[in-house]
């Protein structure tokens, strides 16, 4: 009790001194060109440390509130600087409002829309639980003594659908045990991992990347010196190269985007900038991960509240990022809802025109099917998904479904997947690219 009382009164005192420090930082800046940089950096670091103390529910509430206040601040500043009165801004804002209203109406006005939105939220929650509680589900020993073969068998014993997510969690936990034992080498190429079945490799690599990104990203902030940020990103790339099997690196690279967008959203722009100079291909995987993260963000989980598709379209500063973000988002959307294809069909009904503009949506869906088919061979949910046809009373939707989903998926399973498997390049499906061109480069099937 004594310790508790002491800690409790220490916090407000620390906060008061911190406030005074920030006033001093702003009034007497080290760099007069960026007078608020020091204070921004301090606020960022303390906010991150505070976030780390939240439980999931509170963290989700914080995220939603924070995203909303940031949006609101942008609006206020745009109004004050008269940017909000330019025709371009007004058009964009109006289209955003119209799009959001349509999304909300879709969910709330029809019984079917509400049922599907509710089901989607349930699927999301199921995945969240599977990954979050992988430790208990697989009885992973806390001592770190991993019998990988046994744990993989336990993951697959959970059945089709949970297996994929738990293998990813297992990859993460397994990689975590190597952290702190320098040098970190051969995690998935060493003797212990040599008995891993091929089907587990894509998701084990995704878990490996998660672990690396979760350890490295908290060591930098948007205000860290650029060489430091660059060094950390290069370390991430180096770790993946030193520990991933050849051909599966992409699955690990992609997780950097997932971690950055979920936990360090203010770092997305700076990571994008640095990766564009380090490695364009890793940048492509990064944005795919950002898209995947959007699907799971608390702000977009509440049915009808806000749409991740608009964010995927807007957040990337370039076409490579935009296409990958949309592919990553459709990847997650198709995979999480694979048991209810009508959810994806409902999405197509309202966003089909947007998805038809290019092949990024289709690329995400076909890539996720190739990956799921590899992780869970003869998956009953994939077969059911491919057999599903929307109501023929809506010919437009049937056409969209065939063009954007079924056609690409069949091609992915019959043509691309066998070739990628043969050439040991399954990691390639973790980013947007023309698989046809890739096949050409690999020398065909």
């Amino acid at each position: 009790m004594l310790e508790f009382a002491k800690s409790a009164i220490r916090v407000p005192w620390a906060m008061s001194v911190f406030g005074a420090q920030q006033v001093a930082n702003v009034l007497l800046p080290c760099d007069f060109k960026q007078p608020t940089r020091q204070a921004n950096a301090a606020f960022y670091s303390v906010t991150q440390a505070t976030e780390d103390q939240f439980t999931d529910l509170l963290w989700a509430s914080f995220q939603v509130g924070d995203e909303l206040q940031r949006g609101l601040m942008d609006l206020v500043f745009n109004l004050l600087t008269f940017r909000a009165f330019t025709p371009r801004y007004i058009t964009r804002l109006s289209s955003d409002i119209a799009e959001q209203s349509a999304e909300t109406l879709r969910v709330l006005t029809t019984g079917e829309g509400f049922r599907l939105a509710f089901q989607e939220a349930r699927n999301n929650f199921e995945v969240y639980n599977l990954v979050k509680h992988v430790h208990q589900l697989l009885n992973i020993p806390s001592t770190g003594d991993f019998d990988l073969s046994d744990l993989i068998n336990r993951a697959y014993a959970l059945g089709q659908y949970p297996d994929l997510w738990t293998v990813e969690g297992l990859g993460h936990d397994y990689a975590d045990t190597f952290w702190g034992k320098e040098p970190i080498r051969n995690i998935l190429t060493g003797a212990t991992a040599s008995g891993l079945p091929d089907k587990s490799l894509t998701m084990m690599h995704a878990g490996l990347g998660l672990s690396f990104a979760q350890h490295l990203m908290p060591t930098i902030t948007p205000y860290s010196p650029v060489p430091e940020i660059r060094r950390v990103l290069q370390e991430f790339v180096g770790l993946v190269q030193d520990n991933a099997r050849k051909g599966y690196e992409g699955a690990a690279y992609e997780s950097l985007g997932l971690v950055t967008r979920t936990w360090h959203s203010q770092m997305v722009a700076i990571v994008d900038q640095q990766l564009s100079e380090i490695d364009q291909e890793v940048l492509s995987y990064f944005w795919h991960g950002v898209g995947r993260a959007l699907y799971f963000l608390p702000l977009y989980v509440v049915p009808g509240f806000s749409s991740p598709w608009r964010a995927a379209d807007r957040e990337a500063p370039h076409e490579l990022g935009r296409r990958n973000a949309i592919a990553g988002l459709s990847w997650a959307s198709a995979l999480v809802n694979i048991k209810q294809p009508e959810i994806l069909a409902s999405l197509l009904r309202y966003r089909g025109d947007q998805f038809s503009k290019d092949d990024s949506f289709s690329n995400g869906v076909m890539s996720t099917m190739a990956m799921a088919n590899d992780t869970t061979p003869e998956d009953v949910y994939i077969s059911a998904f491919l057999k599903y046809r929307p109501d023929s009373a809506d010919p437009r939707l049937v056409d969209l479904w065939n063009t954007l989903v079924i056609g690409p998926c069949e091609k992915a399973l019959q043509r691309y997947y066998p070739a990628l498997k043969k050439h040991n390049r399954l990691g390639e499906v973790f980013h947007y690219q023309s698989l046809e061109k890739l096949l050409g480069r690999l020398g065909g099937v």
Partner: protein
Amino acid sequence: MRDFTKSMMSYSWATSMFSLQQMLNLLTPQGRDPTAKVTEAFNNVTAAVVEQLGDTMKETFRIGDRMQQEMVDMMLGNFGLGALDPTRWMKMASSMIQQSAEAAKKVTGGTTANGAPAADGGAGSAPSASQPQGWGPMPQ
């Protein structure tokens, strides 16, 4: 200015949520010591805050902190009887004066060339807090 306002708002929002979180932690205690989790959270956040302070502010924080700790010891230690002991109050006051004098010495020796306080504030340093918990597709 835009970024500064956003950062400040995020910080205020995080602080409010932090208070709520600690209230919830106290109302739903886990383990033997119901306050252990909250104490740890308080200590983690305090450590992160102190890391962002410059030398002068760090010293100011330490003096105030020590004084607070002694007061708590007096109030809650020895069944609160310490609070009635004038000798302890005297000791605390003299120790405070001594610490302030030492701090003032340090501060005058630690001013920058232009006389401004060393507002280094640890800018850009990443928080040394514990690993974040998992979310969505990410395990803890």
